[in-house]
């Protein structure tokens, strides 16, 4: 850096003139004098990131987004978003002579004539899968560890929007080649829009510019796919990252880690290398997938034709769960005054996904309202230390999984020799019961883990060494946990119930808004119910006292050594 060359090399009274700056130093100096980068760089190049694998999941999303931009630009050089009908005369023999749209024709051209075209097309598609999948696992990590709490709620909202818009970007993307599968998807989308009461038909005509399929949908989807949504995505990604820098990264509790610091490695040289290297890994994995694994073989599907359909017509996986809800929805359709209301489409495709996304968006605020937590949090929680939150996410995931399974019901039926009807009947129940069971199991599981952790913190871990006392009693020796582990258990914050004012005043008159306060109080009690609190100093001292006693007594011959008794009872 330019400044290093001017740093004094002695403690003498007179400043030592800097030597001639190096070439790089001179270049940096030149740039700094014009752009003022030094201050920014000084602050940010040393920015510290904590080290944990789960903090790199969002990075997968970022890097696959970069892969998407790179490969997407390549594809635009040849793709022609037009629905003009042409005769296919490319090098894929079985389709030669078919009448196809120009969009399909140019996709075939990219796949079969452009050098590396199929590789890049497949990389683009795989990267889209990875982009959305990594956003989802990143989101789950954030929620499970409590990283969505104050002050990061808005970044959660931005992330949820990224997930929603990324999904739409994926849909518009895989609709572009105008092959049989994507055309079926667009046809379905047309039906979904039309299922909306009153405005549905107008919405459909607005989007398609005509009766389906018209000639406008591909050019429109194209401009949405390459300009509108990527622009929004870029802006949101930028905002997401700026907020990340502003809030600083969260970290796991541990020695030396507090709410007021970040312990980890600096951007330069460590994280630049790690993150930069991870980009190449993501690019490499995408390239290997694109090279070896067929995705969306449009030459096999053939051009879209509304009169044709193929078995196994599914959307890409991220649209699979609404499709699954549609598949298990009973066929409830109503007619009012000669107008059909397709409730069986409207509910699973329009209402439920909308509700689910709203819930997702509001999760930090819902939790905050229940817990009444107004403190800032920079230290993460282990999932077990927030049992109800963890259980809530697992139950949402179970709902998602059940809908997802329903989306692949026909493939599951043929692959596992099952009846598609029975899968449907099962899932109709499981989609309601499954999340409840998952909630209860997860919550109790977390609480058991909390108990176990507290037990270990107070009495040490089981060494597997069995000792026999002189009077014949057997006991297992316990050792204290390593200091770092101990700190994770003892150092965490305990749960704090919100302090709610009583619902009635001194004269027994109900206060306005006390009804919601009452609900809130009940919910927060449920939220924290049965949670195990971290050991208090008194409990730790008590345990230590017992253990000291145990060692002495163990050497002696007292048979009623109560600590040994409790330990052997406990295990």
């Amino acid at each position, binding site marked *: 850096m330019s400044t290093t060359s001017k740093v004094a090399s002695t403690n003498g009274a007179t400043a030592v003139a800097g030597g001639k700056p190096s070439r790089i130093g001179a270049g940096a100096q030149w740039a700094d004098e014009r752009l003022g980068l030094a201050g920014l760089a000084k602050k940010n190049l040393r920015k510290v990131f904590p080290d944990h694998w789960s903090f790199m999941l969002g990075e997968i999303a970022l890097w696959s987004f970069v892969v998407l931009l790179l490969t997407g630009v390549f594809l635009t050089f040849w793709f022609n978003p037009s629905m003009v009908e042409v005769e296919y005369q490319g090098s894929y*023999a079985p389709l030669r*002579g078919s009448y196809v749209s120009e969009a399909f024709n140019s996709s075939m051209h990219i796949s079969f004539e452009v050098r590396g075209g199929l590789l890049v097309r497949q990389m683009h598609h795989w990267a889209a899968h990875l982009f959305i999948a990594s956003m989802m696992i990143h989101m789950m990590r954030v929620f499970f560890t409590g990283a969505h709490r104050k002050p990061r709620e808005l970044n959660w909202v931005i992330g949820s929007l990224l997930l929603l818009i990324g999904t739409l970007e994926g849909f518009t993307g895989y609709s572009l080649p105008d092959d049989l599968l994507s055309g079926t998807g667009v046809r379905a989308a047309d039906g979904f829009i039309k299922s909306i009461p009153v405005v549905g038909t107008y919405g459909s005509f607005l989007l398609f510019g005509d009766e389906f399929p018209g000639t406008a949908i591909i050019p429109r989807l194209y401009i949405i796919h390459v300009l509108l949504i990527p622009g929004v995505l870029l802006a949101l990604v930028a905002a997401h990252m700026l907020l990340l820098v502003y809030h600083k990264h969260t970290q796991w509790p541990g020695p030396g880690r507090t709410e007021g610091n970040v312990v980890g490695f600096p951007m330069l040289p460590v994280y630049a290398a790690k993150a930069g290297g991870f980009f190449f890994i993501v690019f490499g994995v995408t390239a290997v997938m694109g090279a070896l694994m067929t995705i969306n073989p449009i030459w096999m599907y053939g051009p879209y034709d509304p009169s044709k359909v193929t078995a196994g017509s599914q959307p890409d996986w991220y649209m699979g769960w609404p499709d699954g809800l549609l598949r298990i929805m009973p066929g409830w359709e109503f007619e009012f005054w000669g107008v059909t209301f397709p409730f069986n489409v409207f509910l699973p495709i329009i209402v439920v996904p909308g509700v689910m996304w709203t819930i997702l968006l509001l999760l930090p605020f819902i939790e905050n309202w229940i817990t009444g937590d107004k403190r800032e949090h920079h230290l993460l929680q282990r999932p077990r230390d927030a049992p109800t939150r963890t259980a809530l996410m697992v139950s949402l995931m179970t709902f998602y999984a059940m809908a997802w399974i329903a989306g692949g019901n026909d493939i599951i039926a043929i692959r596992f020799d099952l009846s598609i009807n029975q899968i449907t009947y099962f899932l109709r129940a499981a989609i309601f019961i499954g999340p409840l069971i998952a909630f209860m199991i997860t919550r109790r599981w977390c609480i058991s883990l909390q108990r176990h952790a507290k037990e270990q913190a107070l009495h040490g871990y089981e060494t597997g060494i069995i000792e026999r006392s002189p009077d014949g009693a057997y006991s297992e020796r316990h050792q204290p946990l390593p200091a770092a582990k101990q700190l994770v258990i003892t150092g965490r914050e305990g749960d704090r119930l919100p302090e709610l004012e009583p619902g009635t005043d001194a004269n027994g008159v109900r206060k306005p808004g006390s009804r919601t306060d009452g609900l809130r109080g009940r919910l927060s009690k449920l939220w924290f119910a049965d949670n195990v609190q971290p050991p208090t100093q008194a409990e730790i001292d008590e345990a230590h006292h017992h253990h000291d006693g145990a060692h002495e007594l163990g050497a002696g011959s007292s048979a009623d050594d109560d600590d040994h008794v409790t330990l052997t009872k406990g295990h």
Partner: protein
Amino acid sequence: MRFLNRSAGRLSRHRRGPLAGLVVLLLGLVLTGTAYAAFAPAGQAEEAADNAELVEQGRELFLVGCATCHGQNGEGVLDVNGNQLGPSLQGVGAASVDFQVGTGRMPMVQPGQQNPSKNVAYSDEEIEALAAFVASLGPGPGIPEEEQYSSDYLDSLSAEERDAAINRGQQIFLTNCTACHNFNGRGGAMPRGGYAPGLRETSEKHIYEAMLTGPGQMDVFSDGNIPPENKREVIAFLTTLEEEPQQGGFSLGGLGPVSEGLFAWLLGIGGLVGFAVWIAAHTTRTQKGKGQA
């Protein structure tokens, strides 16, 4: 007359020649043979006799292996609840027998939603006999000749004709077949545990017969619906589908987005999370060198 007399005289000159007897004998044999072949109805009679023998042989096999469900005369059998145990075979034709028995679907293990293909229980001669017997019950589609279904005819076409034939085959396949059998011929699910089987393992003859007879839940594609030459083009398309190289790499089962999503999550995300764990686990020594960038 003079001319005739002269040539008869010339011929007559050889009448005592050394080969004369042999020539006359040969002429006599050829004449007799040709006349016999031309006038005698013996050929058909023999064929009819052969066929009757075959039908009888088939009937005996049928009584042992099929009559329990299909009835002794192939009239179909109802069980005690009035449900159809085995359907009537009158008019299903020899093609149906050749398909059902030739792919091992018949004899069935048990009644059910789907009749899966399995090891073939009868020899080719026995199948022929069974087919002859069932064909004798009523008129129906016969077993196709090889030139009707074989995709080998593609070799005799010019490159352009070949492309056109395969393209027509694909169009017909996409219009009529993919809705159940999948775009890749990998099969698909049908209601209540039934399925449209994958077509990759099915022989050309059996594909043709299936179109002709519509086994199970499949529609019948009669010759009026899909003419024989188009049926052959569908088969030609399916054959080229198998011969096509996998342009995109591994086909992942050829099942569409479900298997793609599975691989994206298991291999893609699974692998990348593995790399993330690896990167985070390999932490740097901060004291190495001067510690300055």
